[in-house]
């Protein structure tokens, strides 16, 4: 492999800065600008501003150099399981930079924002259809934010029934994403962990044992984080509903089911979607994302305000939601992300939507079939196809050579391949969770499997080579322990020298 990532020993902005430079220009104004300084009470006036000062070319070069030390979907495969990193169509970026969107202020009279409201209204309808829910709010800023909002709705529903004092437990499988328990606790619930059975699915007997009049609901990911479809999901729904609880669908893995199965049809009352995953809006190195939330008919009255609605003539912001949980974000959602998802859905359409899940599931099983199965063990439910992602254990490699999942991940980086998600779910030893997505050509899937097999082989012959990886990246393996230790922690460029 000829890969070598750019290596710039790029200084910090503060080291590049020099007094007497500025990269910004301002219009000249006919008037005495200094006069406003006198309006500020003396003791509230800022004396000095310690920001670094740079010229425009310096700023541009600095950030371009940094960008060259960053891996991205546009460079290659990014098979992070549970994160669905697929190709993001360029047209969506173009459309999202339209000044008729970027220059809109959230307080504008609704008569002046009919275009964006129409798009938001249509998008929420489409997402409701795709998820099989009655109504969708576009407000949540991320998947976890959607989870929190969903939990607030469950809380409001229970409160409305006068059961809040008793009903305060949220059931969550031990294989769930960490955001589930965190979101439930933020909304005031106690978390009850539900174990996994020998098939890798929710342990129904344990679930039945955990159910009580304290059960507020259950948060479930389908397919689960092992990539397995919870085939007893209807039964699970029934158990929860009969106990008086609600079913929450974590939409992180919805890419596997588009157009084939709908969460609403499976018995879920609340569903969040990660637009930056399933609907191909880029993730921006950590955000912005967007986490719209759909609910069943019974819960529509609890949705956050405002909702975008249409009265037959004009689109408007509806604040008249009878039992609303209130407002959950400053304004109406991450609009530029929403419009990218809208673009994507229009491009894919009803005819090809199902092909997304088909192709992503095909890619994942194909990649799995090319792995050396004695090195990468497939735990749980052998013979059952995985969905959009799968989890293997690198335990055999560790036993033989001491090389761990982390080392394998770092070794992949040397080949210009992004590592899979590692050490998750927690129920699999030395877990590697791989999600190739539907946008990877077959040749890349072959290459990825080959790389993993080669690394497994090398681990036996020359483990040190794997443990020393990566060497072709912009920096060799980092000392992450030092970074978090109280004595060596550096969270700010002040006091560096």
């Amino acid at each position, binding site marked *: 492999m000829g890969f070598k990532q750019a290596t710039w020993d790029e200084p910090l902005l503060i080291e590049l800065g020099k007094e007497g430079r500025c990269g910004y220009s301002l219009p000249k104004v006919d008037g005495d600008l200094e006069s406003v300084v006198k309006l*500020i009470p003396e003791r509230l006036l800022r004396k000095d501003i310690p920001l670094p000062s740079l010229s425009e070319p310096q700023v541009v070069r600095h950030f371009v150099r940094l960008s060259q030390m960053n891996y991205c979907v546009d460079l290659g495969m990014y098979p992070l399981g549970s994160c669905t990193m697929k190709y993001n169509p360029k047209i969506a970026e173009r459309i999202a930079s339209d000044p008729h969107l970027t220059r809109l*202020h959230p307080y504008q009279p609704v008569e002046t924002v009919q275009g964006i409201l129409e798009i938001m209204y249509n998008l929420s309808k489409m997402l409701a259809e795709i998820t099989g829910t009655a109504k969708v709010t576009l407000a949540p800023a991320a998947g976890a934010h959607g989870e929190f909002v969903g939990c607030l709705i469950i809380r409001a529903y229970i409160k409305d029934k006068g059961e809040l004092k008793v009903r305060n437990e949220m059931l969550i499988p031990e294989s769930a994403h960490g955001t589930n328990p965190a979101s439930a606790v933020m909304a005031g619930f106690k978390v009850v962990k539900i174990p996994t059975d020998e098939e890798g699915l929710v342990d129904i007997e344990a679930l039945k044992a955990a159910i009580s009049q304290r059960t507020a609901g259950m948060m479930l990911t389908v397919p689960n984080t092992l990539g397995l479809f919870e085939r007893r999901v209807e039964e699970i729904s029934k158990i929860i509903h009969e106990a008086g609880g609600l079913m929450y669908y974590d939409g992180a893995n919805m890419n596997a089911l588009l157009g084939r199965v709908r969460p609403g049809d499976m018995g879920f009352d609340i569903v969040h979607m990660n637009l930056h995953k399933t609907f191909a809006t880029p993730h921006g190195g950590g955000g912005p*994302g967007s986490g719209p939330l759909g609910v069943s008919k019974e819960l529509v009255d609890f949705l956050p305000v405002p909702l975008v609605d249409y009265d037959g003539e004009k689109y408007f912001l509806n604040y008249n939601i009878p039992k609303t949980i209130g407002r959950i974000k400053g304004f109406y959602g991450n609009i*530029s992300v929403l419009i990218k998802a809208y673009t994507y859905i229009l491009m894919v359409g009803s005819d090809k939507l199902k092909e997304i899940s088909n192709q992503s599931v095909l890619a994942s099983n194909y990649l799995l079939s090319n792995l050396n199965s004695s090195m990468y063990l497939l735990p749980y439910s052998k013979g059952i196809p995985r969905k959009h992602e799968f989890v293997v254990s690198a335990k055999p490699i560790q036993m033989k050579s001491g090389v761990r999942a982390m080392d394998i991940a770092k070794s992949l980086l040397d080949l210009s391949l992004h590592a899979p998600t590692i050490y998750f779910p927690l129920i699999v030893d030395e877990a590697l969770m791989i999600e190739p997505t539907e946008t990877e050509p077959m040749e890349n899937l072959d290459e990825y499997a080959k790389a993993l097999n080669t690394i497994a082989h090398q681990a036996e012959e020359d483990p040190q080579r794997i443990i020393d990886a990566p060497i072709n990246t912009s920096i060799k393996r980092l000392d992450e322990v030092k970074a978090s230790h109280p004595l060596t922690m550096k969270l700010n460029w002040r006091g560096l020298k």
Partner: protein
Amino acid sequence: MLEDRHPYLPNLDKRITQQMLNRLKIDSIDDLFRDIPESLVLKKRLNLPEGKSELEVKKHIEETLAKNKVYPEYLCFLGGGVWPHYVPAVVDEIVSRSEFYTSYTPYQPEISQGVLQALFEYQSLICDLTAMDVANSSMYDWATAVGEACRMAVRFKKRSRIVTSRNIGPERFEVMKNLCEPAGIDVDVVGFDLETGETDLSQLLAAINDDVAAIYLENPNFFGVIESKVFEIADAIHSKGGLFIVGVDPLSLGLLKPPGEYGADIVVGEGQPLGLHMNYGGPLLGIFACKGDQNLIRQMPGRIIGMTTSKDGTRRGYCMVLQTREQHIRRENATSNICTNEALCAIAAAVYLSLLGSEGLRELSKLIMYNSHYASKLLSEIRGIKSPYFTSTFFKDFTLGITKDGVSAEELHKRLVEYRILGGLPLSRYYEELSNVALFSVTEIHTKEDIQRLVDAVGKVVS
């Protein structure tokens, strides 16, 4: 056949799909879904439009968006949490680099140094700006940052009350309540002085006792008014052992003393003015910073990037730190559920602040303050208008009172559209006692001609 293909699905062609199926020794893709109960499988095609070409989709969305009214055709004088500011070309250029925008959360730091160093620099710039010691690498927006700051203060102090003022942003107040309520936090709200627009100091002091985890104030507040008693307020809450949380418009900090210098323990704010477009209110950028107390930092929500070295000690590098606070490690014991944040917006802010530098920020702050005072003064000369309505000094946003009978602030807001002006948020929506007061905002993008257009239009509406 082009219709059997799709630009984003490289293996859709029957021959390629077949090769892959052969490897799996199955006949059809449906076999891969055989474990899904038949009763759940969707029998119909979803009620969505048929897929369209890129050309058609672009045309359709652009035509729909064209129904929106924006500047330069319509002048925008709205503020209150999102403001029309100029975004330098460099900012859009950098955040349009796909190395940044198509990357994920930097779980593998060795190939993510670009995002990591940029975020470390963002955190450092925010610390410089606010005079705080530690910043996280962003929250969803100002409103959610306020809520998380209150919860953080309550965890840190092990007390159950928060005190705030009625003059904070009303939307932010609602979001804050929503984050506080499930945690059993009581929020006490004190009033503001109807003449100055500042928080009523005596009411505030009376509300502080040993149960109060923190006071949350905004400076400038929702009315654009600069709170002049912040030193006294900081002393008062500190003497009772509570924290002082301050919310800021970062562009005011070119002129105003940073909260860290008047005793703030946590600073939150809206980062949208730092190089982000308004986008109808999202994505925004929640600023979040605090003092360097180790125990406080460990209660902080969100991601923090730190500096370290390569294991061999030869090179400087960056990675995520203190992840044991976060949801993916701590699960139900995490400080917050936030995972995806607004990283790209934080990078935009880092680019913006590094273009500005100390002098650029100072000059920009002055220009904004000058323009807004210039506009307020011209408006005050209109008969039937009191501007600013509140007497204390303001920055960027200001209140305008209509003293003439027969014209409401709500009507002014609507009628201005006829003059192709978007402005004057009617405060009656949030405050009964401000039935005829509107909030305007003037920034560096407004020329004297723009301001004259506003003045003429307001004059016509109230005449």
